[in-house]
Structure formats: C-alpha cells, structure tokens
C-alpha cells in the first residue's frame, strides 16, 4: 500500500516537474520571421541606441565622453527583489561579440539568451518587443562597431524565490504582450504615432512610470499607463506623466520637448534621480523624436496618480 502511494507520489512529482518545465520554456521569435530581418545601418542604429537607453544600465552612471560607450556592465540596480547587474554587451567574446542577429533579436524582444535561459525583466524586453525589425537590425549593426571590452559583470544578487531563473519563462508567457498600449484616435498625426512607437517601444518609459500588477512582480497595469508608480530602485515615487492634473496636464507640448532636452521643468526645477540618465539619452536624439514623444504624451488618456 505504502509502496504504491510512494510510487504514485514520485510519478506526480515527475509530472509536476515536466509541466513546470514546459510552461516555463522560453518563447523565441518565429524562425521564419527572423530569416527576413533586413540589413542593419550603423548610423540609424545610433539613434535607436540613444532611444533605447542601453548605456544607462550597461555602462557605469558616472561614465562620460568616450567611456559612455564602454558597455561592459553598469552599476547595481537595487530593487525589492535584490540587486541586478546588467551584463557586458560590448562586441567582445565576453559580451555579444559572437552573437548572431537572431540571438540578439531573441534577447531584445523575447528575453531569451542564446543558451535558452530567460532574462529578468529588469531588462525591459517587454517594451523592446514592440521595436521594428529594422530598428533591431540597425541597433545590432551599431553595437558591433562599439569598443570591445573584456570582462563579465557581477552576477545578480537576488533573494529567494526570485533567484530561480527558470520561473521567468512563465512570467514571459503571462506578461509579454506586443499590442499597442494606447488606442490612438484614427486621425492621429504621424508625429503622435512616432511618439507612441518610441514611448511604448525603445524608450520603455512605462517600465518606471507605470504601476505593476501582483505587488510589483507582474506586468505593467496598462489601464494606468504612465500615471506613475513607486520607485522600484529606491525611495519616493516616479511621477505621473499623463495629461492629468496629477501629471503634466499644465505643460505644453514644447515644455515636454524642452524638458527631455534640458532636464528643466516649466518652473525651472530639474529632473532628478534616474531621470537624469534618461535626459542624457533623450538629449542625443533628433528634435523631431523629442517632439514626437511630447506629442504622444499630450495625446494619451489622463489618469490620476494610482
């Protein structure tokens, strides 16, 4: 009797393990689609690089000048789950030097490493999933031309159970969604649509500016898009950037564009905390991209702070 029960238990555990393994399997991009990625352009790739904000995590914050492009890993991102250390993404063997475009696209847009492991969503692949094939190809071309830097970044220091990487495969299945977040009016201008592409995609603004479900562990609460959230990387809160009273409703489109370039608000207060890094990247974009982001932020639904 006991032997049968023990056997049944073992079978159940094995089945449970198999189910766990299946539902946490990484979801890669469609192979046929990958084969059709266009050739990349280095100059266009630089624009994508600044929009994507790669250096803010993958290079030390204090780096200036040429050192900004030494992407051997950045400062710790300290969150309630523990500390994340962004890896080396320079074109060295220790970084992405031996990667193919397919592997790069799967990392950026599905959070899957070349070894088939899932990345932690501190890497904002749920936003990058919305990037165009051209932008991914261009970015890859640009990044292969950056200085190759040796060295591996420190491993993440995460608390249990967040250090069980395999579980992320399920997180991705539940929370990765490429659909547009805001249903823009049919008559929206090209400028607003470009802003939507940038904000919901490479600029990944929502990752800080939107609340998360499941006590901060889930996906972004799109019903409260860009209305602010607790600061995942420290104290205080991340502001509401919707056109509400709680947000930036009193700002003109030109005020928003000026802020993204200079860091100065209409009252000449300044950006602070992690936003300073974002401004440095936004300042490198052409003015039409900052204007597009500003136009989108004036067009999205106004929400009160959560």
């Amino acid at each position, binding site marked *: 009797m006991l032997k049968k029960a023990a056997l049944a238990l073992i079978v159940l555990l094995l089945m449970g393990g198999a189910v766990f393994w299946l539902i946490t399997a990484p979801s890669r991009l469609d192979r046929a689609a990958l084969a059709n990625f266009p050739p990349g352009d280095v100059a266009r790739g630089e624009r994508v690089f600044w929009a994507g904000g790669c250096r803010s995590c993958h290079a030390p*914050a204090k780096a200036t000048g040429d050192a900004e492009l030494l992407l051997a890993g950045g400062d710790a991102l300290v969150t309630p789950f523990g500390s994340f250390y962004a890896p080396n993404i320079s074109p060295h063997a220790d970084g992405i030097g031996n990667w193919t475009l397919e592997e790069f696209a799967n990392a950026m847009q599905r959070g899957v490493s070349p070894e088939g492991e899932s990345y932690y969503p501190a890497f904002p692949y749920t936003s990058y999933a919305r990037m165009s094939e051209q932008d991914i190809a261009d970015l890859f071309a640009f990044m292969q031309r950056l200085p190759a830097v040796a060295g591996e970044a420190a491993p993440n220091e995460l608390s249990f159970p967040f250090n069980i990487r395999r579980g992320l495969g399920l997180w991705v299945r539940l929370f990765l969604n490429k659909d547009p977040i805001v249903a823009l009016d049919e008559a929206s201008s090209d400028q607003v649509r470009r802003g939507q592409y940038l904000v919901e995609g490479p600029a990944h603004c929502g990752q800080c500016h939107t609340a998360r479900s499941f006590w901060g562990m889930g996906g972004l609460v799109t019903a409260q898009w860009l209305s602010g959230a607790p*600061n995942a990387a*420290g*104290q*205080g*809160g*991340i*502001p509401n950037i919707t056109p509400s009273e709680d947000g930036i409703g009193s700002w003109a489109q030109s005020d928003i564009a*000026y802020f993204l370039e*200079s*860091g*100065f608000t209409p*009252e*000449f*207060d*300044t*950006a*602070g*905390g*992690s*936003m*300073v*890094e974002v*401004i440095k990247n936004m300042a490198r974009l052409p003015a039409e991209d900052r204007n597009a982001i500003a136009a989108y932020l004036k067009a999205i639904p106004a929400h009160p702070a959560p």
Partner: protein
Amino acid sequence: MKKLLLPAVVFGLLACAGAVFAQSADKAIGLDNPVEARKWLMKSNGAAAGLGGAIMKGEVPFNPAVAQMVFRNMNNVAYGFGHYFPEGSQEGSRAAPAIWERPEEFRAALAKFEADTRAGIDANPQDVAAFGPLFQQAASNCQSCHATFRLPE
C-alpha cells in the same frame, strides 16, 4: 543711462523683496528652520536658472548685467546652501540620505557648483554666444546634484 535701467529695476525689486522678507521674520526662516531655508534657496536658484534659460530660448533679450545677476544669484546659493543640512534634518524633506552618508561627495558637488557659477561671473559675457556655454555648464550642476542628492517626489 538706458543700459542701467533694467538692472536698476531688478535691483530695486530685489531690495523691496528684501524689505518685505525682513518684515515676515516671524516665519523664522534661516538657521532656525534649515529645511525651509534650503527649499527657499533652491527656489531662488530655479528663478535664476529660469531667467538664464529664457535668455537661451530668446524669450528675454540678453543684457550683460542680467547675465551677471543670473550667475551671482546661483553663486550665492552655492555658497550658503551647504550650511542648511544639520544632522537629523532629513525628516520630511526630499534631501537624500546620501548627503549625510557621503558628505565629502556632497561638499565636492557644491564646490563644483560654486566654481562653475564663479566662472560665469569672472568671464562677464557680453553676448549670448559667450553666455551660452557658461550658463550650460553652471546649469548642468542642477541635474548632476539632484541625480544623487534629492529623492524622487
């Protein structure tokens, strides 16, 4: 004579503001209330940065004396600001704990702000082309300091 009109008006307004300010001494601003004092100083900084920014945007015509006032105002704040952070005054303010945890770094940031604004004063720019880079340099301190030493809202 005309050249001095605007600075004279500005100075006059500041003198009046100073007189009104002195009248409201029951507000106990200053060393008695460091949190209020440092917020007040930063608002002055913002006003100076706003004026400098308006000149850069072309909304306010350039005037060498006005440029001096922008730098001098920010330099004054750089000079006095650091004195308003006694131990235990972190409560109820956006001052980041880093100010007390890494005081040498905070000192260095203030010293840089003082030096950058003093460079503007000493250079005494006579046109926008000369003013621009000096103002950008001074104003860059706003964000670099706030990145580390002020908490998000």
